[in-house]
Each structure stands twice: as C-alpha cells, then as structure tokens.
C-alpha cells in the first residue's frame, strides 16, 4: 500500500512528455512555501474551504469520531481522532471539505497511470512520483517503480534528496530521471527554514551524478525572501556546475500553496505575488554560458 494524496493526469511540467504524476504523502522537510502542504504529513489531511462553509455544523454532527468541532465559529479538525471515514465530506452539501490521503494498492495506481500509456508513447512521457517526498515511503516506492518499469513506463521522481543514501541506492536502478530539488547552498539556512540536512542532500546529489549524470535535472525553486539573492543564485549555479550538473530548471516563486495552507488552518507567511519568469532570465543566461542546459519553469 502507498499513501497518496492525488493522481494528476496530463501533467506536463513534471518531466519530459505527457505524464501522470502521483503525489505521495509524507515529507522530511517542512518548507513554509510548500505548493502541496497537504502532502507533508503522512496522515490524511482534511482541507476545509472557509469560502464555501456556511457553518451549518453538519460535519460536526456527522463525525462518528467526534474529530470536528467549531470553536468561536472557527472550524477545527483533530487529525489524531479522525479515522478517514469521509462521513463529513459526504454530508457537506457545500463541498467545503476534502480529505487528502488515501492508501492505495500499487496495482490500482498503475492501472490509473496506464490509462494514458498511448500519450506517453507518443510524447516520450511516463509516470512521475512526487509529493511530499516520495522516498518517505521508500519500500513501497521501490515496489511500484519496479512494477512501472515492468510495464515499460519511463519513471521520474521529484525529490528533495533529504534521506539516507542507502534509500537512494535501493531505488535508483528503477528511476530514469531525478528532478532533484536544490533549495539552498547554506546548510544552516536550509535547516532553519525547512529542517533539511544540506550535507545529506549534497552527498546524495553527488552520488547520483556519479551514477549517471544524464539522469539528473536539478530544480532550483527561487523563493522570495529565502534564496532569491542574486549573488547566492550565481554561487549555487557555480557549485552545481562544479559538481557536474548538466541540466537546471529555474522555478520562479509562486503562491499556489497558500489556499491549501489556509484550508489546513496553517498560516502562510510568504508573499502572495508570484515571480515573473523574466526575473530568472539572467540566471538562465549564466547557466547557459557555463555550458549547462537551463530553462525557466518545469
């Protein structure tokens, strides 16, 4: 079984060609700008859309676990009590609730993925496992990757690299492409903001590059107020180049995670303005001049 938040078909920015992306639950980082905050926890997460809610309390009344209550008019969900029965979701006439997180058999996931096999074949696409951090469920991940390869699928992962090298070594043979996040050169800053282990991430990246440099695309999310200082970005590109990275995606900051964070009752402290592609153009030119392939966006 694998815990999944959702499966997105016709994903066209998660690797080459037309793909299906499977978003897995759980993450070893806790980036506050995360685009998919509902994937961070390994437990199912209940999203509550305040704009749709009319405070009728039907959800509260329908919950057999008493996991929902309203305090001073505000919705509260107790994830520890919740058993994921979805009664509240089914009873809400406003469609204000969504439960994200479901255990699925790998066979069922791949059945869904295989529905678009013809599109992958036409476009050199395939399946991408994303999250969260797909390596949180490394054993299940290895199993499903093996099955996917047996079905002739091109496999990709979107990964933070923040896990033991041994896990990476287990899964690497079944992965055709790593979309490898590189968020910050400074380990202390990374730890402070994301709880990530920069040294581990760098070691794992070096390992992958040593295995097969063509299997790795480094993705650099440029986050306003975190890593968007020009001198830092240039330094990072120098570092990656020196490491042997050949392909870089520069991802402009966006605030797509804001709405979901709010639906989870979490504060979202990063700006709402999205970053224009043009801001990243000098970095792209810099990387190109160094002989790396570079593009803006995924």
């Amino acid at each position, binding site marked *: 079984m694998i815990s999944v938040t959702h499966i*997105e*078909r*016709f994903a*066209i920015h998660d690797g080459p*060609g*037309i793909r299906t992306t499977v978003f897995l639950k759980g993450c070893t980082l806790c980036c506050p700008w995360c685009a998919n905050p509902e994937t961070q926890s390994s437990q199912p997460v209940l999203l509550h859309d305040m704009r749709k809610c009319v405070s009728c309390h039907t959800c509260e009344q329908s919950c057999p676990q008493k996991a929902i209550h309203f305090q001073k008019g505000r919705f509260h969900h107790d994830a520890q009590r919740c058993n994921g029965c979805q009664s509240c979701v*089914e*009873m809400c*006439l406003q*469609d204000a609730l969504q439960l994200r997180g479901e255990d699925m058999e790998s066979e069922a996931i791949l059945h869904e993925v295989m*529905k*678009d096999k*013809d*599109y992958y*074949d*036409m*476009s050199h696409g395939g399946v991408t496992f994303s999250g969260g951090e797909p390596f949180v469920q490394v054993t299940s991940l290895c199993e499903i990757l093996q099955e996917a390869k047996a079905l002739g699928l091109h496999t990709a992962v979107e990964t933070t690299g923040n896990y033991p090298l041994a896990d990476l070594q287990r899964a690497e043979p079944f992965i055709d492409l790593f979309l490898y996040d590189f968020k910050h050169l400074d380990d202390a800053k990374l730890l402070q903001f994301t709880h990530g282990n920069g040294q581990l991430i760098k070691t794992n990246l070096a390992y992958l590059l040593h295995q097969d440099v063509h299997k790795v695309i480094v993705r650099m999310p440029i986050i306003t107020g975190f890593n968007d200082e020009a001198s830092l970005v240039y330094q990072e590109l120098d570092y990656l180049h020196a490491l042997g990275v050949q392909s870089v995606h520069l991802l402009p900051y966006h605030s797509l995670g804001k709405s979901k964070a709010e639906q989870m009752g979490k504060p979202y402290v990063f700006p709402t303005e999205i970053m224009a592609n043009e801001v990243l153009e000098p970095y792209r030119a810099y990387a190109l001049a160094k002989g790396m392939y570079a593009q803006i966006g995924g």
Partner: protein
Amino acid sequence: MKHKINIDGAQNVEVSKPIPCEKSIEEQLNIMEAYTKAHKDSVGLDKAEREIRCLSTIFPVLFRSLEDDDLIAGRLDFLPIGFGSVTSIGGVGHYCVFHKLRAFKEQLTNTEDKKRVDALYDYWQEHDVKAIYCQDVLTDDTTGRFIDCHYPFMATARLSGMMLNYKRLMREGIEGLKKDIRQQGDNTFLRASYEAMELLQKVIDKQIALVQDAKQNASKQRLLDLQLMEADLRFIREQPPTTFHQSLQLFWIYALCAGVINYGRMDDVLGPYLQNDLDAGRLDEDEAYRYLKSLWKMIENRRTTVNGRIIVGGVGREHPKEADTLARIALRVCRDTRYVEPQFTLRFSKDTPVDIMDMAYDCIGSGATYPTLYNDDVNVPAVMHAMRVEEAIAQQYVPFGCGEYVIQGKSVGTPNTLLNLLKLLNITLNKGIDPNDQKYKAGPVHVPPCEEFKSFDDLYNTYKEVLDYYFDLSVDAQLHSYEVMNQEVSFLFTSILMDDCIHRKKALLDGGVEILGGTNETYGNINTSDALYAIKKLVYEEGKYTLAQFHEAQMADFDGYEHIRKELLRQDKYGNDAKECDALANDLYEYVAKGIRQRGIQKGLGYYLIVISNNQTNTDWGHQTWASLDGRKAGVFMNPANNPQGGAAKNGPTACLNSLAKFQAKYHGGSVQNIKFTPRMFREDREKIKMLFQTYFDKGGCQLMVTVVDHGILEDAQKHPEKYPDLIVRVAGYSAVFVNLTKDIQDELLSRCLYD
C-alpha cells in the same frame, strides 16, 4: 379535421444579426406580392414550372449593390416571403417566415398596406412548404416544430447542408450546363432547369449593371478591380472559367442562386485555377489573398450563424498540390479576419503536410476557433460503413452546419429530426408523463410506475421501447419531409449540380439525387447515460436508494433532497475515462445510433444517421427538460454535443479525450468534440498539446473543435461586453462572437472545463 397548427416562431438558431434589406419597405412589399401572385397564378402547373416562375420574381431583383471593397460580385437580400433551401436565410421551398412577416408589418404605418400583409400571411399559412409539412406531422404530445422545446421530438422540413458539385459547374460553364440539359431530352424538370440557367445569366447581367454603377465615382485603384470584375462576369456568362477570379465569381453567384450556405471542398475546386494563375504570373499570392479575403467577407455577410462551411485538405482530392496552395492562403485569411463564418475546416490525414498542420495550430492558437479539425484516417472508413458507400465516395465526405456529414455533390443529409434522449428518460421514469407539462408522451409503450422496475434491465429495456417508438416517429417524419418538399418544389438550382439529377431527368427529391440520406440530431446523450449509470450503481448494485426515492427527489427538483443530489453528482461521469460509466454511455450511443441507422435502411433511405452535433439546442431544450438523475437541476442546459456536462470532467484532457474516443465513428453521421485551452498553455506547451491531439486521433478520435481563451476573459466579457467585440468562442457546432450570445448560452460555455 385536424386543428390548424401555428408554426409562427423562431425556426433556426440566429446569433449573427442579418444585414438589413437594401430595398424600401414599399419595394419589399411589392416583391413579396409579386412572388405570391406568381405562386397563386401557377396553381395546377408542374412544380418545376411554378418554381421557375416564382424565382423570376425575386431574381435578379433581390440582388443588392456592391460594397466598396467587394472583389466578387453577388450580394443578395432576403424577404420574409420567397424561395430557399434552408431556414438560416429565408426559408424552405416556397416559404413564408411568419414571425418576420409580422415584424415587417410592424414597420408599416398605412392600414391598407397592413391589410396587404395580412392577405399574404393568410395565403402562406396554407402554402408555406414547412407549414404544409407541419400540419401533417406535428402533434400535441410527441412531436413539436423546430424550435419548440416542449416536446421530446422535433421535426422540420428543410434542405440543409447541400454542398454542390462545383467541379461540374467549372468544367461545363453555364452554356455547357444548358447544352447538357438540352441533350437529355424534354420534360418539365429539364425545361425549367434550362430556364434556371437562363435566369442565372440574367443574374450575371444584373451584376454587370451593378458593377457599372459602382464604377461611377470609383477611385483609380478601385476602377481596376471593377474592370476586372466586369470583364470576368461577361466571360463566365458564356464560358467556363479560366482564371482564379473567374472561378470564384462563378462559384459564388451560383451558390447564391441555389440558396446553399455550405460550400465544401473549395480547395480542390478553386486550387487548380489559383495555381495556374500563380504559375503563369497572372497573379501573385498577395492578390490571391485579397480575393480570398473578399470571399470570406461575402460569406460572413450572409450571417448564417451555424453554416458557411469551407473545407480544405484531406484525402481524395483530384488536385492535392494545387488545393494545398489554396489551403495555405485560406489559413492566413482565416487567421487575419477572425470572422465567425466561414466555418473553416481542415480535413487531415497522416499525409497532410506538416506546415499546414502547424499553420492550423497557429490559427487556432490565435483564438480564431478555426480551423475545426477532421481526421480522415478515422472518418473515411467510418463513412464507408455508416453510409454504406465505397471508399472513393466516402472520401468526399464533408461536414456541414454543426457537423453533419454529406457527400459533396452526391447526397442529401439534412437533419430534419431531433430527439431529446434525456426528456425521454424522464418520461420513462414518470409513467410516460413528461414532468414539465404533465402530458403523457410515451405513445403505445406500457410504462409502469418506476417502483415496478425490479432490475436495471427492466428500466433500461422500457426506456429502449420508448426510444424505439420515437425512432419510428423520426424516420417517418424524415421521409415525410422529403415527400412534402418534393411535392411542392424541385430545388432547380441545387438539382442541376447534384449527381445525377440532370442525367436521370429528375429533380433532387424526385429520384434525382444519387444518395438520399438524412440525419437525426440527438441531445442530452451524456446526461442520459450518466443518469442511467447513477441509477444502476446506487439503486440496483449498491442498494443505497430505491428508484422511487430517486424519483421523488427528482420530481422535487432535489429541493429537500440535496444529499441525494450530492450522491448522484459524486458518481462517475462520462468524460473521466471511467470504464463502466463510459461503457454504459457507449452502449446507449450504439443503441440509439444503430436504431436510427437500421430504420433508415429499412425504409429505403441511402442512410439515416444520428449526429451528436449540437448548436445551442442543448441549452434551449434543457430549459424545458426536468431535473435528471445525473444530478442536473430542472431547466439547466444539457451536455453539449458529445461532451461531458459542464463541470463533470475532472481528470484532465487525456481522460476526457479517452472517453470521447470510445464511441466508434462508424455508427454516426457526425459528432462534435469541443475542447478549451488557455492561450498560455496553447503557446508554451504547444508540442505537448499537438501530441495530445495526435494520440487522440490515433485512438479513433474523429474530430476536434478547439477554443483558445484566457481565464476570466469570458466572465469579464459578460460584465463588460463593449470591451470584447471580436471575442470568438466555439459554442459546439458553430462559432460565435461571445457577447452576441444570450446569457444562458454564455453560462453553458463558462461551465465547460478550461485547460491551463
């Protein structure tokens, strides 16, 4: 005696506003009276003779002056009384459009003149071809006129979608046609046909006079154009055309006289003349572009809303190289003009040049909604089966109007019958009674109370019995439309260019046309299969509800039954690549398609096929269709064409296209698939979108109509229409300027998924 059925009311979808008649009110009234007198005086004469006498009262007088930039002569006005083929301009055969005649009367001040109009109104109530037809087939319960959405079935008399054999016209010229007619011998049809060609020459004389009028006060530059027009008119009056401009002119003037509003594979007709001129240095591409742009304007100015088809590309052309030269220029014209008509259509196959496909995508990406894309690799074999014709004939298929196929120059395929499958399901669930007006509409079929359906098959089989009854009504109504039209008129101009009327010496519907086909527009297909699927799952498989509970909720329009509605909405819907749900949709599709097709064969029609094409009738008919068990509320639009209900497709474009590709094209006579992207996605992810489309086409997708429009633009255009005078959208089988649509149609468009 049956009581008189009043057919006064809208008779076609009219979004584009017609250009007002150039004639004075008095002149218009005089012409209508002259037409009516000719009709009256020719009582007892053969229909062909009567037709030519009547035509002589409107041709050439109804032709109007040239516009300042016209490069082709031929602009025609229409009056509420006259002769025609289709309801979009004028009417059918000897016609009176009653509501327009009433509006005409409103403009009069003089009581005497008003009485003159009343006399015309009274006369035509007895003689309008469509009225005669309606008296025979309309009923109080089952069968309504087109467009009266209170009925589950609508029937009409019209001759839509005729696409003529213009190659014959080009080859023979007018004198050649006259000679050919004469050589066939002598009967009233041939005599009248000969006179029709003489009348065509009079029409050309009139154009010459109009060009001469335009020469007065023309600039030096304009004079050059007018001189060419005059010379070419004189030439084609006597000779077959030899140049591109002459061929355009002859085609156009003939199409106007025939009253046809779909044109067909003009690349293969005009391409050789164009190429010849280019090769000889008589013409350069810029000049060709200018002529073609003028044709585009002439077609747009006819304002036929759901028609104006020009088709380029595809297999089975005689002159593919020359035709592609024209196609390339036409693609540029289409992109630059951004008109809603012509409905510019690209037929393509694996052999279509890559640059033409790329130009087509660029044109679509510019927001033109054109060209609509038709996949020959699927459609040609499908048409062979559907119409039971050889490959060489199937290769000449052309979509007209909202997407129905005919064989150019060889078949009649007018959609004179329309079925609302969803209304019929509601009637089946409600003891044969339509919940909208409480009338019993199930004919002889025994429909028990819904609680007596012990299994899903019980329900489904009874529904099929109701469908069968309506299929029988349909085929009879379709056939009867031909009988009535044939009894009244010969459609002379159309007959002359349809194989093989002249050589058979018979008018089109008198045994003249080689393939007498027909089509039946079906509506609410997907709401129906989604409703059946929800019933099957929740009542008969899971046992969560009884059908009686569902029925009770449905009759209340789900008021107080919101949880049931939510449960219904949560079920799998067509358009999400859900196997079981799509399988049921396909089962229903095949039952309906085969049921209609088989009845056509049994009754001796060349073909009779369903079309899932859609204009805006899904919305209009939805207003008169009660809540349905797919979770749709009463009065809400039904699903467009063969697409999911707005908001139901939630799994992205691959899933939606996979659902669409499951219906085999060989059972229908045209099925429309709409898809919408943002300009950003269409621009930045073009290569992936092309591969998305290619995969869909390889999987059996027969066609696509693509709208490229931005998030929020349509919503903003609803609020500030003045800012969006040229925002074009694909409604289903036609394109329209968004702000010209009524709010309910706009809402239906907004409900559809926009991929970004």
